[in-house]
């Protein structure tokens, strides 16, 4: 029995979408859905194996298309027993990996989507409270820019905060990668400033995740790193960073680079 009867029903719509879409990143999820239509893949595990991705990634793709309204799916919370709320793993000793966190975040989003638009807002005690996605909106010119900083070192963080707040931005700080991912979901940050060596999820993993999320794709990412291997910078850009700042850094230089990326013209582009 197929897990995806709705997708099969929407085969024509899906094929039309595949014909329109040329960007490889956006094509990949569509190709996954076409596998269901054309090759009769019946479970997300089959799709994941065929696409060489994790089942969590397939869930995410499905959720993305469900959200965008292109396809209507059955309630993911009911159909996907693995999509557990974030709190279910909150006390686990195991180090979280990116796909787990993404799967959890997507499960939250899918649950909220399935609840409809007129549902009661999640209470503070709800496990979903921390991860309620915020609709991305463009800020007015006079509004303060929000920068999400992922930095474990208090001193480095305080220097960066002082510099960016002097430039008129508001800085929110996460001290590890998992907290950063949760805050990214919660805040409507204009720019992400991430240390490459964050614990939990490192800067590269976070950057890749942000680039895969349509909501954050246009948001600039600046990575911060200590001198190490020469490939660090290459890896950062490959992960989707817009700029890479080496520590020790010049606070004035950092302010200028962040300011350049926050300029409206740059953001619109």
């Amino acid at each position, binding site marked *: 029995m197929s897990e995806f009867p709705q997708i099969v029903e929407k085969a024509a719509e899906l094929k039309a979408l595949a014909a329109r879409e040329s960007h490889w990143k956006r094509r990949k999820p569509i190709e996954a859905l076409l596998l269901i239509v054309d090759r009769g893949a019946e479970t997300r595990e089959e799709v994941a194996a065929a696409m060489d991705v994790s089942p969590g990634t397939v869930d995410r793709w499905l959720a993305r298309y469900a959200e965008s309204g292109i396809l209507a799916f059955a309630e993911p919370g009911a159909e996907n027993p693995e999509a557990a709320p974030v709190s279910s793993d909150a006390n686990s000793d195991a180090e979280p990996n990116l796909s787990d966190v993404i799967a959890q975040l997507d499960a939250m989003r899918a649950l909220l989507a399935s609840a409809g638009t007129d549902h009661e807002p999640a209470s503070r005690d709800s496990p979903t409270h921390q991860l309620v996605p915020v609709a991305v909106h463009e800020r007015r010119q006079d509004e303060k820019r929000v920068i999400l900083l992922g930095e474990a070192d208090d*001193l480095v963080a305080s*220097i960066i905060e002082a*510099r960016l707040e002097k430039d008129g931005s508001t800085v929110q700080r996460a001290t590890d990668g998992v907290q950063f991912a949760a805050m990214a979901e919660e805040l409507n940050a204009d720019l992400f400033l991430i240390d490459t060596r964050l614990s939990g999820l490192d800067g590269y993993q976070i950057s890749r995740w942000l680039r895969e999320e349509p909501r954050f794709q246009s948001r600039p990412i600046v990575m911060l790193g200590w001198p190490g291997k*020469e490939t660090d910078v290459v890896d950062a850009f490959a992960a989707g960073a817009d700029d890479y700042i080496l*520590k020790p*850094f*010049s606070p*004035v230089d950092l*302010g200028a680079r962040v300011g350049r990326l926050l300029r409206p013209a740059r953001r619109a582009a």
Partner: protein
Amino acid sequence: MSQADALLEVLIVAIAGSLAAAVLAAAAAMTLRLRHLFHEHRERQLKSVWIPRLLSLVVDDNAIRCDAEVGVFSREIRVLSQTRQRALLELIVRFAFVVRGTARTRLCRLAEPALPAARALLGRRDPAMRALGVHIVGRLGLDRNEKSVLRALDDDAPLVRKTAARALARAGRTDYVEPILETAANLEDWDTSEVVSVLQDIGPAAQPILRRAFSDPERRPAARAICAEALRWLNDLTAAEPATEILLRENDRELLAASLRLLRRVGGAEHAPAVRRLCTSHDPVIRLNAVATLAATSGLPESPDADLIGVALADPSSWVAIRAARGLREIGCSTHLRRVLTVGHPRASLVRDVWPELGTSTTREAA
């Protein structure tokens, strides 16, 4: 006095003694605790005053305002006690480690009046205090205290010498490469990777000096091996020729192994002949590195080197055999590996063990 009375007297004295000792210990503990609390309070006070000032100095781009502030703060620092000056220097040096450019220059100027307090530490008996002195002076006033830091390279304590080497390397000046190399070669407890990371701090500008030292037969093999490692991490392609020369002429195990590792990173097929002859060395460390380097430099599955690496699969040292298996996989020659698995080779179980790390396709084949 009866015996019982005497015993009672001894007991009373013992109890009184114990009580006195307990009271004294409690008093000492309280004194230490109070002292600690006092220091903590002073440190908090110092931080609450100085951290906002230091933050303002490092993030401000108004040079005139900052210069004026540095002048005012310097006058304040001059009247502080030496202990307070030292505590402040420790705070400033933490800032100086994370910022560069104008921000660090301002910090150095601010620290100047307090530097005599750090210099005073260089003469202390405790090596940790001397190292702290070198650390502060090296970061905040190397230009004016270069001689003191260079002298610290000959200190009796390895900790002080290492701190001095690190402080000099961070300055990024190539004239410090030689003294650092000399110190490093004399330090038995200094790990090679530690020295390499120090030399990396100087950056690519150090490459010509390191290459010269690496090729110099008059120099100690330990120092040359360190140069080889540093050149490897700096990806110095021009070091491949001197490395090949060393493989043909030298016998020192450490130097040969380091040269082979260097060639593995920067060498090509033209360097393979020099590597080949070391695949049959009597020393397993040399054989191991030679096999790995040969796989990296020859790079073709149909080359005769593949057979040589295949022979190393039967090496008495299992480490060499593992390297050979990985090497064969690297050059895309799974025929040897498959043969080992099928003909009941003595290393078949080893190959099966390392197979999962060799790649997905081969894992399927092994299954």
